[in-house]
């Protein structure tokens, strides 16, 4: 146990034996790459020859073997980040903590670094805790995601479980891009929950034990919304407002009174009235 506010436990940082990669990398500017990485071993009284061997090995693993003599300011942002990781790995801590390690990199580099980091964690068999606000990054890199809401665990599980089976409204809204339907719960029968929106019956998967007659929230991912030209079950009549071209597809924004629904489509639709369908197997009712 390192820290427990309730039990007043706080082990000093130097006694925890963890590896930590800072958001800003926090490389010591007055030390070379080699000395930055070697510091943790030096503090542990490792013999010089062994320090040399282990630092060289770690630097080679992260692909910076040739840059050991450089100083941090002579490295690119991506290289600095690798040094920070090497520094956290070199004394083989049981766990390394990565505090938003990719947030300082620009968008393109970030995707490369993400793939590189995932590969490194898998090939070296590391136990790593990766803190991030970016859900795509979390899903790409993690074996297991712990979603925190104001300091408490909202849901934990595999990335696919979090994305496809959110347990709470917070988890459902946090992951992915969503539409939100506000309505009243009409009935729950077996695997179906029916809510009333604009007088229509919209059916989805029940996700909470709300009482019939109370307010309900339907959540559906953008990619599951479909557009139709005629009325039908689970469809709402809405007006198309603004089609936006995103490159690989179009995003359509529909509106009806205060409700806005966004959907993806392969081709733009004509402006005017359309029917927006919410497939029952993709709509969660909370």
């Amino acid at each position, binding site marked *: 146990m390192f820290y427990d506010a309730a039990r007043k436990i706080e082990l000093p*940082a*130097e006694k925890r034996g963890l590896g*930590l990669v800072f958001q800003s990398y926090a490389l*010591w500017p*007055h030390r070379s790459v080699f000395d930055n990485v070697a*510091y943790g071993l030096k503090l542990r009284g490792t013999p010089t020859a062994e320090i040399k061997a282990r630092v060289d090995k770690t630097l080679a693993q992260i692909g910076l073997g040739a840059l050991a003599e450089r100083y941090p300011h002579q490295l690119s942002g991506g290289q600095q980040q690798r040094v920070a990781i090497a520094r956290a790995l070199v004394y083989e801590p049981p766990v390394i903590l990565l505090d938003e390690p990719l947030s300082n990199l620009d968008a393109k580099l970030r995707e490369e670094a993400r793939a590189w980091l995932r590969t490194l964690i898998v090939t070296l068999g590391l136990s790593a805790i990766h803190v991030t606000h970016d859900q795509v990054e979390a899903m790409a890199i993690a074996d297991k995601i712990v979603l925190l809401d104001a300091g408490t665990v909202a849901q934990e599980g595999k990335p696919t479980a979090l994305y496809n089976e959110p347990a709470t409204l917070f988890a459902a809204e946090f992951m992915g891009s969503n539409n939100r339907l506000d309505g009243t719960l009409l009935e729950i029968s077996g695997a179906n929950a029916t809510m009333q929106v604009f007088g229509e019956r919209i059916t989805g998967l029940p996700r909470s034990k709300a009482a019939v007659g109370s307010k309900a929230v339907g959540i559906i991912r953008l990619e599951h919304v479909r557009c139709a030209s005629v009325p039908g079950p689970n469809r709402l009549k809405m007006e198309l407002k603004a089609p936006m071209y995103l490159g690989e597809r179009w995003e359509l924004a529909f509106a009806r009174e205060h409700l806005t629904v966004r959907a993806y489509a392969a081709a733009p639709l004509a402006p005017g009235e359309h029917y927006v369908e919410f497939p029952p197997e993709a709509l969660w009712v909370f």
Partner: protein
Amino acid sequence: MPIIVYRLLVLGITTLAVVAPLSLVVYQSFLTAPFFDHSARLSISAYSFVFAEDDFWQALWTTAAIAGGMAAIAVPLGALLAFLMVRTDVPGRQYLEPLILIPIFVSAVVIAFGYVVAIGPVGIFSTLAKDVLGFVPWNVYSLFSLIAIAGLTHVPHVYLYSAAALRGLSTDMEEAARVSGANPLQVALNVSLPMIMPAILFAGVLVFFLGFELFGLPLVLGDPQDVLVLSTYLFKLTNKLGVPSYQLMAVVVVVIIAITAPLVFMQRQLLRQAQRFVSVRGKGLKTQALRLGPWRWVAFGTIVFWLFITVVVPLTGITLRSFVVSWGEGVDLLDVLTLDHYRELLDYPNVVRGITNTLGIGVIGGAISVVCYTAIALAVHRWNSGWTRLVDYMVMVPRAMPGLVAGLALLWVFLFVPFLSPLRSTMFSIWLAYSIVWLAYGMRLVSGTLLQVAPELEEAARVSGANDLRVKRDVTVPLIKYGMLASWLLVFLIFVREYSTGIYLLGPGTEVIGSLLVSLWGTGAIDLVSALSVVNVVMIGVGLAVAVRLGVRLHG
């Protein structure tokens, strides 16, 4: 050694060094005789005696008048100067900047001597004026001249804080005023200066406070007319009754501190407020200088004129005087040129010792002081505890003690504490006094450097397994190395120019140029005084040149 031991040790030593002299002074003020006199009893008779003295009240009011007067002169001029230098296209700004700061770095006694030999009754500029006009249109020995000179030489203090505040403010608001049609003067008066009001207010209180610390100027310029201020009154008291009248001096010291301490506290509050204002900082956009048009030459002329009065007149006066046998009406300066005054310096062993001691205290003493200031700053650095407030206040205490007062208090400490007595006549006593007097200044320099160390650099070391002390040794100290070097240079400049702190500690072995100048001036040895003054100015000039060359910021 656990970090807490180190912290408490440093805290204890600092508190002792600061509180001991102060409490000894307060204790002495309530005695009937010097503390080493066995007949001394507790009493308030010293207070009754001093408060019954007309001279004392006269000195107190004169001091207040001078302090108020110099603030009234320095504040508007300094603020205007800052606006011209920071925001407008006055020609040659980058060359003017270091010149403007000279009065801060040159010892006030040297400036005072300079004025006496330049525009005194037989000064070189006075004789020139007499040749041309037939009479001398000024009298340097008057309260008015004293206030004017004190005011003009303190313009840089106001300039520094106002300029720093202006640099921290985004120019957007000024540009908005210009777009609305305001001319440069209106921009300055309606937008820029009101926005840096907290900084100007702080500088005003600072200058008023420095008025109570004035010693060199009133000693040299006020004394011949019997114009006494509190510090010179204290200095004169030394021999008032024929016996050491320590209790009376202690009372004057207590009075001085009772006035300066609230001013120091007020400055602290105002500085916080001013800094809060500065945080309205724009992005580091390139600022467009305000075009003054032909008026920029008027502004340039005004700045040069002010520089001429406050820097050129006293410094050329003292320099010329050091190279001539004498001057007066009808004397051709070329006929009387000589180097004798400098040779003469070497004939006096105490003067030679004074010069080497001054260099020693500046170079070696300055280095040790910076190490001590760093030790204190490191002790409170990232210490999450109420004790750091104690250090804050401890550092403020000596600030309220003018150099003369602190030197006196330290002298008494050395007399009072038996095992310290042998150190009194060594340079250690001077070093300790200087270090205590400049504690606040030095701490500000070092803490400023420490603030720039990003906390995660230290946290990274702790996560790697280093304990607190190890983090300081391996990460913090190496990172502030250059800041410490810069502080060393600035502390050197301060220590070399210092004159009032060493006066009471002056004795064989503890001579420094500053206190020697004061004591030589008393004997009327003007030849020696001018040559020694020039030596002092040259030392400071070299230090300043090195500082400018290395790009050291001249203000903490």
